[in-house]
């Protein structure tokens, strides 16, 4: 157990330092949600979104989940590069805990996404977002769990496929429909019945709905509990898959 913690710390440190060295990439990852915030957000200001709060309280939670969807699903890309450099095998020949190789990376991904989310919320506040602090913190908790789940799946996929050419299309074909169907930009309650029905099969929708309720201070709403349940389930399933793949020798 101590070894797992120490090893996780070592791996976390390595990848955190890599992230800090490429701060530009950190900002670049924020570009898309920032563009939506700045160029799309103001359009919604006077439109009734029946979200209980103002338009920023509806849009910003969506953008936080979108940031998670786009950043964390691509986390595995680094593993593909490292496989080609032989870094993955070099580490697997050492007695380092296999699980730490996954957990250390995931921890970095959570820290990275939370940092980006804080920046996003700060800019949103400048544009007019007003939300209770507790609600925003709950939002960050959801984003952290989402990062954990998606990055774990992304690493598992990256260990399984060999090349960027196989990896990127799979991720893209999940990302965009998932984004659209989870009501990231506008709540799915505005959708016609059939679209609303489909979106109920997309787990991220429940996370977006939950964070939106939290942002208007409605912490006891059933959406928050449902979202938390879905997030935890997603994380458990993803971590199980990720752990299996990382512990299998020869992967």
């Amino acid at each position: 157990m101590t070894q797992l913690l120490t090893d996780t710390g070592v791996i976390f440190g390595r990848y955190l330092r890599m992230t800090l060295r490429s701060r530009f990439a950190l900002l670049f990852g924020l570009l898309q949600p920032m563009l939506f915030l700045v160029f799309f957000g103001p359009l919604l200001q006077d439109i009734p979104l029946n979200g209980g709060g103002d338009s920023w309280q509806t849009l910003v939670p969506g953008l936080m989940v979108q940031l998670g969807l786009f950043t964390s699903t691509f986390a595995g890309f680094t593993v593909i590069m490292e496989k080609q450099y032989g870094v993955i095998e070099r580490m697997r020949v050492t007695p380092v805990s296999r699980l730490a190789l996954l957990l250390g990376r995931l921890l970095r991904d959570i820290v990275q996404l939370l940092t980006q989310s804080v920046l996003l919320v700060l800019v949103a506040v400048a544009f007019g977002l007003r939300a209770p602090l507790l609600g925003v913190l709950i939002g960050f908790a959801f984003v952290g769990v989402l990062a954990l789940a998606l990055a774990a799946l992304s690493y598992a996929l990256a260990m399984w496929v060999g090349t960027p050419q196989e990896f990127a299309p799979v991720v893209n074909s999940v990302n965009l429909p998932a984004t659209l169907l989870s009501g990231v930009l506008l709540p799915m309650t505005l959708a016609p019945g059939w679209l609303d029905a489909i979106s109920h099969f997309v787990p991220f929708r429940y996370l977006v709905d939950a964070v939106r309720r939290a942002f208007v201070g409605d912490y006891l709403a059933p959406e928050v509990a449902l979202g938390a349940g879905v997030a935890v389930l997603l994380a458990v399933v993803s971590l199980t898959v990720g752990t299996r793949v990382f512990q299998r020798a020869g992967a």
Partner: protein
Amino acid sequence: MPVMPAAIRTTQLTRTFRSRTGEVEAVRGVDLTVERGEILGFLGPNGAGKTTTLRMLTTLLPPTGGTASVAGCDLTDDPRAVRRRIGHVAQAGGVDPQVTVREELATQARLYGASKPESAVRAEKLARQFALTDLLDRKCAALSGGQRRRLDIAMGLTHQPEILFLDEPTTGLDPGSRADLWDLVRRLRSELDMTVVLTTHYLDEADALADRLVIVDQGRIVAEGTARQLKERHGGSPDATLQDAFIAITGHGPAQHDSTAALSI
């Protein structure tokens, strides 16, 4: 003097891969013994099973049959104990071009359980031994081929392993760097009593460096002995080249084609 157990002993080591077209037997029952302090050359044509065998012995790939003990530990029962006692330098190397030499060496030491201060000391020490001190704060991408190879090997030696596995260590190196590397491998044995298992395609390298050669073909050991023995037995005379012996053993000579036909370009 107590009898030391062999560094490596395998019995009917086998690896079968399942593919769409059926089963592929990459390694078919390899019995191999490597003594402590020995430099063993592992030769064979492409696809003979060299790398697969090495990947099994270094715990990267579980065998589908047979048993092996490496550095006194059972490969299947206690792979972590094997990992603590071996070093492996893969063909691809294994450093990230965007990371500095110091960071790679120190992190590697930490993966073997060294504390933070200890790992910093070890990184400095290894850099001195491998003439990398001036390059410690450069990114790995900035190193020359020879420097990269020295770093790769330093990474495999961070924890002073009993056995070092080198997969085609001199491929792509210039003659000077190759000679340096041969010298290094000899010193690992003479100064540190290390056992070295290396694969190579260069027969002159095998001839000059290895105490004993094992030639594999189609997943089986087809010949083993000193270079001299192989030349006598398979090349026809002690004066035969290792290449003659190698071709006689594996039957993989130059591609059979109509050598009388004129080349046209």
